Every structure is written in C-alpha cells, then in structure tokens.
C-alpha cells in the first residue's frame, strides 16, 4: 500500500499542519455572526418618565 511508504510522511505531516494552522483559522475567524434581527413591533414602545436630574 503506497500510503505506508514512510518517505513523504514527515513532509505531508508538516505541510498539512502548516496549512491547517496558518491559512484556515484566519479565514474562519474573519467570519462574524451578527445577532438575529428582531422584528419591529406594530405598537410604539411604552416610555417611562425621566425621574432623575440631568446632572
């Protein structure tokens, strides 16, 4: 079975880890996941009066 040929093992190992650590995580981490948008309600929200002083 050619997979058992130990000659390219180290090269494949180091190269795959190199790509796995340097190329992919920045691409994955650059994705941002914003919050789900909340739907507008038809009624205006109830406002509480301003009780405390400005300063």
């Amino acid at each position: 079975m050619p997979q058992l040929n130990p000659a390219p093992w180290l090269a494949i190992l180091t190269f795959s880890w190199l790509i796995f650590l340097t190329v992919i995580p920045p691409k994955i981490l650059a994705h941002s996941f914003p919050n789900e948008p909340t739907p507008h309600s038809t009624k205006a929200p109830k406002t509480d009066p301003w009780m405390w002083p400005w300063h």
Partner: protein
Amino acid sequence: MALSFFDQFMSPNFLGIPLIAMAIALPWTLYPTPSTRWLSNRLLTLQNWSINRFTQQLLLPLNQEGHKWAALLASLMIFLLSLNMLGLLPYTFTPTTQLSLNLGLAVPLWLATVIIGMRNRPTHALGHLLPEGTPSLLIPILIIIETISLLIRPIALGVRLTANLTAGHLLIQLIATASFVLLPLMPTVAVLTTALLFLLTLLEVAVAMIQAYVFVLLLSLYLQENV
C-alpha cells in the same frame, strides 16, 4: 511498470513538485476571507451560515472551557470536508487517503485532549477508566480494557478516515474499470455497472461528508470527557 489499483494513492510528483502540496494548499481559494462589508455575496453568506450552525451544534455538549476549541474544530471540519469532497472529482488527489495526514491530525489533537484532562482534572479524567456500577471482581480487568480503548482512540480516528476514503476511491476505480472493460463485450452489463458506479459515487459523496463530521465529532467528544 504495470499499474496496480493502489497506485492512485501514491503521493504524486509532477516535474519535481509534490502535487499533494497543491492538493492541500489550493482548496482554500474556494473560501473567500470575509471583509467588514455588511452584506456579502451569496457564497460568503452561505459559508458564514454553515460555519455558524455547525459550530453551534458541535459546541452544544461542551462546557465553557471547551468553547475555546471552537475555532480549531471549525477549521478542522472545513479542512477535512473540503479535502474529502474535492477528492471525488476526476483526476484529483485526496490527501486524506494518506495515513500520514490523518494520523498526523488525530494523534496530536487526541493527545491534547488527554493532556488537558490530566493537567486540569486528573481524577475526573482517570475516572473515565472505570464505568459506574462495575462489580468489584471485574475492576482490574476493566481498567486494563478501558486503558487500551483509550490508547487506541487516535489510531482508530486516523485509520477510520484513511480506510473509508481509500476504500471508496478503490471501489470507484474498480467498478469504473469493470464498466469500461465490459463495454465492448457485454454492453448491457456495462450500462448496469455504470448505474452502480453512479450510485456508488453518490454514496462516496455522503461518506466524504460523514467521515469528516465523525472525525470532528469524536474529537469533540474526547474533549468533552476531559475538559
């Protein structure tokens, strides 16, 4: 030299360039890096949604500590899924058929979970070696069995992926060869064999996705035990 059916798995070299390097390095051109644009294109939106949902599902059984592994596990899933799926195209090379790559991923990641468990919660980690409610007489032998099953995990993880993909590719090549050879001799049988080949290719698409998922899922389970 006469080609055998296993020669498709030899790490190919062309003009001195190891093509496995191209096979590992190029699939990421299919994943554009998102910018700070509010609305991206369809491809990016689709990938964004998939990564989000997948990571959410995968991290459900993990506690807060385990969530630190989110980026790693998501990257691993994308890595394996892309390599597996692209290998099903004609004339491509599947790097995940190489035992070196799969063991090279499985052993360090499994070892990381074990070391994390042993460092932070050694009693809890070792407690997994004895299932609750075992009769006292069976304790020594069960500890031995559980230790063996623990140590066999990385090998199983790597070899599972290798064997599944190798077997799939081998089957595809065998049945395609059969279909091709039978074409002048028994055309009807050749047509049936081609139909079988089509179904097999569909199966291999499923296997490619499932095996990538199983690898990452098992790793998350090993993490869940130890974190």
